């Protein structure tokens, strides 16, 4: 009870309390939040890709435009983004830090929404729940699509960055057509990305108080509108992505991807597609499409 500062030696965590806390806050925004924005905007292109292609997609359907644009985006990330490995290491470090400390910090509180059912208190509770579920989802998401945990994918599809949209649709639907497990996976994605978008938007709002950027209640309210707006936009992107991929026919998408690779890709990609046993028959109008798609970036 007496002044303990002089008597008790402080642990590493106690000595660097503020630094660790503020790093936790910062990592949620940079790099994790920034990555989330880029990731969701990219993935939502499965729906609005045709618009994104401008004149290049003039003779494509919305679905073909989405598949083509998304494929182009994925290849750009894989082949042209500089220091991709460094970016991944930084992201992983930040994510590990944010989730481990976040878990520890969340355990210091005890939610009481049953007694005090205020909106802000619900957000406090949801912030913690979305953190717990969110990190499990992220591990599932990367485990299944990057590390080949196919035993967790109904239908056992593996994601390929050369056939990005079609393999993702396979993983979400549980096969060429929706299976019961596929519906469950798609719903799981929808719920989890919604929770993560909430986590980011609400975290951005609380971070402004933590750092002392918003002090007055009106300032907190104004910043709240900004965060809600950003959250709504990201939510729209997130839902577009999940709905876009879940409703996509893998067979049709494969067809579009094949056309894309025939036009822009090296022969390796087409070779990989090669096995026509699983794929649908070639679209007879391939040559017409080939001529109508101008080379990107020229």
């Amino acid at each position: 009870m007496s002044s303990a500062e002089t008597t008790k030696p402080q642990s590493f965590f106690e000595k660097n309390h503020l630094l660790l806390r503020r790093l936790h806050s910062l990592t949620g925004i940079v790099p994790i939040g920034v990555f989330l924005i880029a990731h969701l905007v990219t993935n939502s292109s499965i729906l609005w890709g045709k618009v994104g292609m401008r004149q290049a997609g003039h003779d494509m359907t919305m679905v073909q435009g989405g598949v083509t644009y998304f494929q182009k985006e994925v290849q750009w990330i894989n082949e042209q983004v500089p220091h991709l490995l460094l970016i991944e290491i930084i992201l992983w470090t930040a994510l590990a830090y944010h989730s481990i400390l976040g878990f520890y910090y969340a355990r210091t509180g005890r939610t009481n929404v049953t007694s005090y059912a205020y909106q802000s208190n619900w957000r406090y509770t949801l912030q913690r729940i979305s953190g717990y579920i969110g990190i499990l989802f992220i591990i599932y998401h990367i485990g299944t699509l990057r590390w080949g945990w196919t035993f967790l994918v109904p239908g056992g599809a593996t994601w390929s960055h050369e056939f990005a949209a079609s393999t993702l649709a396979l993983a979400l639907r549980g096969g060429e057509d929706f299976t019961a497990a596929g519906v469950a996976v798609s719903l799981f994605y929808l719920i989890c990305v919604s929770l993560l978008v909430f986590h980011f938007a609400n975290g951005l709002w609380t971070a402004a108080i933590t750092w002392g950027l918003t002090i007055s209640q009106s300032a907190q309210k104004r910043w709240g509108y900004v965060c809600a707006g950003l959250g709504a936009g990201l939510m729209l992107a997130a839902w577009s992505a999940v709905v876009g991929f879940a409703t996509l026919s893998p067979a049709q998408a494969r067809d579009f991807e094949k056309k894309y690779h025939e036009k822009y890709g090296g022969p390796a990609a087409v070779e990989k597609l090669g096995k026509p046993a699983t794929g649908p028959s070639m679209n007879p109008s391939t040559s017409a499409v080939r001529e109508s798609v101008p080379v990107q970036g020229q």
Partner: protein
Amino acid sequence: MSSTTPTAPSVAPKPGTRTIRIRVKRCEGPGKPERWEEFTLQVSAGDGTNVIAALQRIAAKPVTVEGKNTIPVAWDSGCLEEVCGACTMVVNGKVRQSCSALMDTIAPNEGDVVTLEPMSKFPVIRDLVVDRSRVFHNLKRVKAWVPVDGTYDLGAGPKESPETQETRYVLSTCMSCGCCLEACPQFTKQENPETWDSAFLGAHAISQARLFNMHGTGKQLEKERLEALAGPGGVDDCGNAQNCVKVCPKRIPLTESIGAMGRAVTIHAVKKLFTLR
């Protein structure tokens, strides 16, 4: 108006009266088991019965609804006008001062139930009486005072601007009642006083640190207060549930104090980082 209450057989219900039930969480002392007891009470509209008056009437005749004689309920109270904080308890699931909890508001209808519990974040001494020492301990952690020892004449203090005065006035109305702490999900019960120094301070202490940092003479301890707020259990441990500001009976803008102290800690930390020591 048919009276079926077993405890008030002699008094026929007067017109305009109603029978309400008071449920009290009882505990005979630290470490003793808790139990619920229920009492009935006749009140009439406009008679001004508050929780304290109800407890006094129960104490005068401590018989439960089952007709069992019991020990009068122990409670704490002081000013009876919502400025001392002594009678703070959990009324119908929410923390507040029981002196300003009028039956006409909280139990306006026949048969309404009022539940009374002690605050859950502090050790119970008996029934509704809790030990709020930690509230004051946390004020000490942030040195929530003006450093004058009164051994010699310091002369006139520094002038205070009307703007500062306006901000500080509402902060100074804090009565350390504990409502903000009871409602806070980050302020958890600490059974062992040894953990008090590293557990979350609470909104009241953060707000008082702001009050005294804005005081002309109180400012002398600014750095020490900010160090405490930057340390374990300080302002960064706030989870921004913002229940504190909603339950504060004095309507102190506690969340603004948290934002203001967050900013002060940020600036203090950056200054410290770029200052040779």
